[in-house]
């Protein structure tokens, strides 16, 4: 045996390696379902299908909160003055720099500046910020003190990003589809 170990790789070495490799693959294949089962299941994904939202009832200067995929979504109808402020603040010191125009969507080539649609979860640790409050009259998160402006941009506090914008599109001037 002693001179065997020193010699060229033989058939037994190959078999050892091949068995070991097959064992690793089999082990991985056995563990994968155990890990994968924790990901969102088919019913959860199905329940997260797109929804249509009628913007008609939301008056100027008002906002609604709707629930989609278990999360709150804020739809805010901004006044002309608020849009003005948000645009002016494009030049302000923003932790997550983004122009107000990049946070609204267009319908038939026209920017729908009065509608702000954002996820209602603070980008810090997911609490629901309170609307029309904080230093910038946007949102204020009571958990750890993040201030957002009316465009949903982070202005002050520990949150790293602006409020996330869900995937959505205008179906008409007063109707959107989220998702």
């Amino acid at each position, binding site marked *: 045996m002693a001179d065997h170990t020193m010699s060229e790789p033989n058939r037994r070495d190959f078999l050892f390696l091949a068995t070991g490799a097959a064992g690793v693959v089999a082990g991985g294949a056995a563990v994968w379902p155990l890990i994968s089962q*924790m*990901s*969102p*299941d088919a019913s*959860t994904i199905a329940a*997260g299908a797109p929804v249509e939202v009628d913007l008609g009832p939301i008056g100027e200067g008002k906002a609604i*909160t709707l*629930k989609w*995929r*278990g*999360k*709150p979504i804020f739809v805010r109808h901004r006044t002309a003055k608020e849009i003005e402020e948000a645009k002016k603040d494009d030049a302000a010191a923003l932790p997550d720099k983004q122009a107000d125009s990049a946070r609204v969507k267009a319908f038939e080539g026209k920017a729908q500046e009065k509608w702000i649609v954002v996820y*209602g*979860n603070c980008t*810090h*640790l*997911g*609490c*629901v910020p309170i609307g029309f409050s904080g230093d910038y009259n946007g949102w204020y*998160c*009571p*958990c*750890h*003190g993040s201030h957002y402006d009316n465009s949903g941009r982070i202005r002050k*506090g*520990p*949150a*790293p990003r602006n409020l996330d914008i869900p995937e959505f599109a205008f179906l008409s001037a007063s109707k959107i589809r989220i998702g």
Partner: protein
Amino acid sequence: MAEHHSSYVPKTGIERWIDARLPIIRLMHDSAVSYPVPRNLNYFWTFGGILMFMLVAQIVTGIVLVMHYTPHVDFAFASVEHIMRDVNYGWLLRYMHANGASMFFIAVYIHIFRGMYYGSYKAPRELLWILGVVIFLLMMATAFMGYVLPWGQMSFWGATVITNLFSAIPVIGDPIVTWLWGGYSVDNPTLNRFFSLHYLLPFMILGVVVLHVWALHHVGQNNPTGVEVKNVAKDTVPFTPFATVKDLFAMVCFMMVFGWFVFYHPNFLGHADNYIPADPLKTPAHIVPEWYFLPFYGILRAIPDKLGGVVAMFAAIAILAFLPWLDTSKVKSGKYRPTFKIFFWIFVVVSVLLGYTGSQPTDKVVLALGGRTILDMVGFAQILTVMYFAYFVIALPLLGLFEKPKAVPASIADSVLGDAKAAK
């Protein structure tokens, strides 16, 4: 003490028969009856036994609560109320379980500070100490998941905040959070898996406790002098009756405190908001974790950067595992380290104050001068966070080099009987 020889002598035929096949009675006798313990242990050494009792109490009350609890978002809250109102003694079992968690943490914090004061983490007890840190981490995970189960407002938002901590990890953070949730937000799949893990983790704790006790019995207990046992006959007494009776007495005293909470102030340590069913659309105005997480929560909030805050919070726990190598002093017990003592007590106060900052709103004023805010809660927590870490990375390494310790007794027996001998 590793050479501690078995003194078990089977008395009956049945015992001899068992001993030859599975020496389990011998094992129990050697570790709980004849096992030699330092004769100078004080009451701080009774918390290991108290913790063992609390673990068993939590498992027993937990198992029976599961017989009535429903892990579903639509029924969880109601099933907890059902336990409180309809189930025979349900109120008692649930209050014991909820307050038991708090008592468990009170005991473990005393146990940890005991180890830190008397240098119980030093050689040859490094692994024993690290196993303790692992138990502490498992306890925190278990307690957190348990708090989610009643599906009240604090349950839901606590779960949201804590799982979102993982979103701070660059690139893979968000996929990890979705995987943890099993959905797009904290929801029914999350509640179900937390329930499963809340049932599993205590048994994992039990497993690590077995290793912890094994390591303890292999190297022997530390003691208030920090001097190792030199002469088993002179320095030690048998575990039974000496330690058993002392542990039992301490346990009874501890249970009186436990009972006082359970019967007179069962909701004092909880939060009223958790009696409001979970609402994913509304965060309570002031969310706080359970009291035992507050110091770490204080550190999390002290750092203005999200990833930085999460890293600092986990580092505050992880750094405990490095304690055996951060403390450079050759003297184990704080009793003989006059300067260390001062820093130790400052550290204790800093830890408690960090807990206080974690319980307060972030914008609350701590220090104001002429109407101007000099220091708010975040600023205060930042100072305390620096002091917390400074204890580990500055004070302990340097103290060992510059401090002049007092004379350490020659042996445990000397420290106990020295005065008596001198008087003769």
